[in-house]
């Protein structure tokens, strides 16, 4: 039956036949999360899930930060006996995996879970149950790793878990297994969110939001999600092979039996380098949103910025070997990776230039979010330039695995991702809570963080060139690294203290911050078109987009699309390129099943540390929970 044959019958209550008050009432009734504990565990509201994600990731940030403080105290002087090698090696491993897998990637994805549906003007994320599932997987993976650490079986193989050190012969006990399975947890959860994000961006954009009107942050999350989809399977193979070597007795990485230790590094870094961009690209999206709002003009070079995002996403898969320049690879091959690593500086440079042009052509207002973006420029550009140094094979031979590299990637990850993230927190906090953050505390926070960061990490470049390798729990007196390390520790403590101030600001502002209103910064994108915090249904009526900055183009009244049912969870599905409305589709209702499904999957992961049979027996509860999850509902779907 084609559309021309019959006019679809009008079912249910539609949003075009109700007064404003009644409409909000209906929408709230349909979309509000159920009450009680079961209701809370069943919630599929992207904002609720994202909030949980954000808070959890913040807790892990604090824990990872405490790891760092402990390490810095141990390193504050030569031959200090505060922390022994066994604990220290667990500390730097936990710091790495916590910051990478439990803080940076999840918090970037969580921000996307919150903001992407709002920015594209839809009522919920695609696959909301999958998103809920991913949160439960993520939080149980994090708890698993930290409980292991508390029980003194925390991983001690570094965040990269190289074989043979993590293999069956040299990694006795369960520590390396904890590492491998923690990786598996986070792979599953981030893949799930990546898929949901891609589908939301492709199919749920508000009518009129053609590809050239998608906010740059949404573009960044889209590219990031694709990078996740292609990168994560590589590390999944690495960690699974490792588990097989350890548990089943395969010899995939054992050179004595014809395996290959370097294969692990290739698999790991094929994921590991894109991982950096999984963290960095969302941050560039944040920068691209904050700068226009405070420079009071649209971003300069929208198209080049989109192309830069896409090319960084693609190029990020071509540089993994620069993490392996010292393994003795053939010279010609290594030189190719010098060129490709240098190449990625071009799209990254292009982004920087476009942002500079936006500020140059705009009328910048120095509020805290923009301050953090300026800090981002200062630190990230330096980190990018040291990255260019690392791309050179011969230069890398001297600085690889030294504190120079530690300095470099903290400049890139903290400068390139955390500073924009902090700016984004000050920027979107009013949307999440309905209250402004304190500007005064914000400025204090910025300056402390900025000075503390540079004091802690700049000297690391120098001590690295002086010959100090990474991952050492102590160093001899004679080498003269004591004073500079003491200075670094002081800087690190200052940096840590800035986060204490940040936490205070968060708590105080959430309680008694100034009420924000819908659009406190007078920004141009759709998330500011709804109330702060947004209602469960996001928008009373789906907006129609006529411009890349819809709120600036349609200052007085946003045009809206009508005809969605309000007595059912209906979304508008639109075409990929032009965002023409195509069908009305029901969004999944709250369900308790993702929670037990995540427990079943997590239980299987933990069990498989001890016996391969866990995979067999674990599949039974997983199957049961999935049957419950996907139990057919007798409602028609996809109404045109």
């Amino acid at each position, binding site marked *: 039956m084609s559309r021309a044959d019959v006019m679809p019958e009008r079912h249910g209550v539609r949003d075009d036949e109700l007064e404003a008050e009644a409409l909000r009432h209906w929408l709230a009734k349909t979309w509000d999360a159920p009450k009680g504990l079961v209701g809370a565990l069943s919630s599929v509201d992207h904002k609720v899930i994202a909030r949980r994600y954000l808070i959890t990731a913040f807790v892990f940030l604090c824990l990872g930060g405490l790891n760092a403080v402990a390490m810095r105290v141990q390193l504050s002087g030569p031959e200090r006996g505060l922390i022994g090698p066994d604990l220290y090696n667990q500390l730097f491993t936990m710091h790495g995996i916590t910051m990478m897998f439990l803080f940076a990637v999840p918090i970037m994805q969580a921000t996307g879970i919150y903001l992407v549906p709002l920015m594209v003007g839809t009522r919920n994320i695609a696959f909301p149950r999958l998103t809920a599932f991913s949160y439960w997987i993520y939080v149980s993976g994090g708890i698993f790793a930290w409980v292991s650490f508390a029980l003194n079986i925390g991983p001690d193989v570094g965040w990269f878990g190289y074989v043979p050190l993590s293999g069956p012969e040299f990694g006795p006990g369960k520590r390396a297994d904890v590492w491998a399975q923690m990786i598996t947890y986070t792979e599953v959860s981030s893949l799930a969110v990546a898929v949901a994000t891609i589908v939301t961006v492709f199919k749920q954009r508000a009518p009129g939001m053609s590809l050239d009107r998608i906010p740059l942050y949404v573009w960044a999350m889209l590219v990031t999600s694709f990078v996740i989809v292609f990168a994560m399977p590589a590390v999944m193979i690495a960690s699974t092979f490792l588990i097989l070597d350890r548990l089943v007795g395969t010899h995939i990485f054992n050179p004595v039996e014809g395996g290959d230790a*370097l294969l692990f590094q290739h698999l790991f870094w094929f994921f590991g380098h894109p991982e950096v961009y999984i963290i960095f690209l969302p941050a560039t999206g944040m920068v691209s949103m904050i700068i226009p709002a405070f420079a009071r003009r649209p971003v300069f070079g929208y198209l080049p910025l989109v192309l830069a995002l896409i090319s960084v996403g693609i190029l990020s898969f071509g540089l993994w070997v620069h993490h392996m320049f010292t393994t003795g690879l053939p010279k010609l091959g290594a030189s190719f990776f010098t060129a490709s690593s240098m190449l990625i500086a071009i799209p990254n440079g292009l982004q920087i230039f476009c942002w500079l042009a936006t500020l140059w052509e705009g009328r910048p207002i120095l509020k805290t979010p923009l301050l953090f973006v300026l800090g981002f420029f200062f630190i990230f550009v330096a980190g990018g330039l040291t990255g260019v*140094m690392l791309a050179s094979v011969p230069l890398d031979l001297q600085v690889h*695995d030294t504190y120079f590299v530690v300095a470099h990637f903290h400049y890139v990850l903290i400068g390139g991702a955390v500073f924009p993230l902090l700016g984004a927190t000050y920027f979107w906090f009013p949307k999440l809570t309905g209250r402004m953050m304190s500007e005064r505390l914000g400025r204090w926070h910025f300056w402390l963080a900025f000075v503390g960061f540079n004091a802690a990490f700049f000297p690391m470049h120098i001590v690295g060139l002086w010959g100090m390798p990474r991952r050492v729990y102590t160093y001899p007196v004679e080498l003269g690294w004591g004073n500079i390390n003491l200075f670094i520790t002081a800087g690190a403590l200052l940096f840590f203290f800035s986060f204490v101030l940040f936490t205070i600001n968060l708590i105080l502002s959430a309680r008694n911050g100034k009420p924000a209103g819908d659009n406190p910064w007078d920004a141009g994108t759709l998330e500011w078109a709804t109330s702060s915090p947004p209602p469960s249904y996001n928008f009373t009526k789906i907006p129609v987009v006529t411009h890349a900055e819809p709120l600036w183009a349609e200052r007085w009244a946003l045009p809206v699309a009508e005809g969605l049912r309000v007595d059912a969870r209906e979304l508008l599905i639109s075409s990929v390129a032009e965002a023409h409305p195509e069908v009305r589709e029901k969004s999944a209702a709250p369900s308790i099943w993702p929670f037990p499904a995540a427990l079943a999957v997590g239980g299987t992961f933990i069990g498989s540390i001890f016996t391969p049979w866990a995979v067999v027996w674990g599949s039974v509860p997983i199957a049961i929970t999935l049957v419950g999850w996907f139990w057919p509902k007798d409602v028609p779907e996809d109404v045109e």
Partner: protein
Amino acid sequence: MKVLARVGLTSCAGFLTGCSGVQSALDPHGPAGEELARLIWSFTALCTVIWLMVMGVLAVALVRRRRQAADPLETDVQSEHAASRAVLMAVVATGLVLVCLTVLSFFANRTLAGIGADAELTIEVTGYQWWWAVRYENSEPSRIVTTANEIHIPSGEPVRLVLKSQDVIHSFWVPALHGKLDLVPGVVNTLTLQADRNGTYRGQCAEYCGAQHAHMGVLVIAQPRVEFDAWYEAQLQNAAEPSSELARQGRDLFLNRPCVMCHKVQGTVAASNAGPELTHVASRKTLAAGTLSMSRGNLAAWIADPQSIKPGTRMPTMNLTGDELNAIVAYVETLK
């Protein structure tokens, strides 16, 4: 002003190179190290200039005067065009700088590859958790020298290092002489080392290799050819017969205790390769892979309780009595 600048520069340079010359990439003592230091400085200089330029533009962008406009969508077509041209030029300039850096890097790599193609001496260095086995190759088996944690080389001559690993991945790195190269099980890597000046150059493992990664140091001692030859001949000798009664007791204890399970003392029945060779251990400058300097006190402390000095080391604590310890230390001290 000029004087001030000069003082600033020299103290800065002193700060950058002076403090830890013995293991610093900025204080090179061989052709490879020098080439690498040059490369580091030229990259640093270029990158600093670029960073300053970007920051300059940012600063001007923030403070420059401009007319006010109420509507954020109102943009000036002409100045947008100018900005487009500027961005385009900046991208082209970035590309050119990158090409320049890539070419610099390629040439440096070629220079490194060309050093010491004619090396006569080949030394096999094998990584163990957490020490280095060193073996001087020779076509005559009786002239092969084995030692540990200390590599003697003739200055001014290139020496080929063959790098292997017995357990996990390690990385050999003596910053003053050359960049690092990994020791990967199942892989054989070669590195050419050359020191232009006599001296002792410290290095340490640069790839995380487990509990005592921090205490896996190595010394490269460059000496004139004559001294090197003399050292080599001395290393070929069997361990000297202990002269004192105490040392003889010590030797007997050594040979009847678990020591022989791991160590080799040439000229005795101790012949295991699991731990560092001890035939001439007392002639070395350090103990336990650079963990302690060689002295009677440190030797006694190490043998009495290695686990508290280097927790996790493969050497067990052996519960010796004071007399036994004294005797063994006296014996090991004779192993010059």
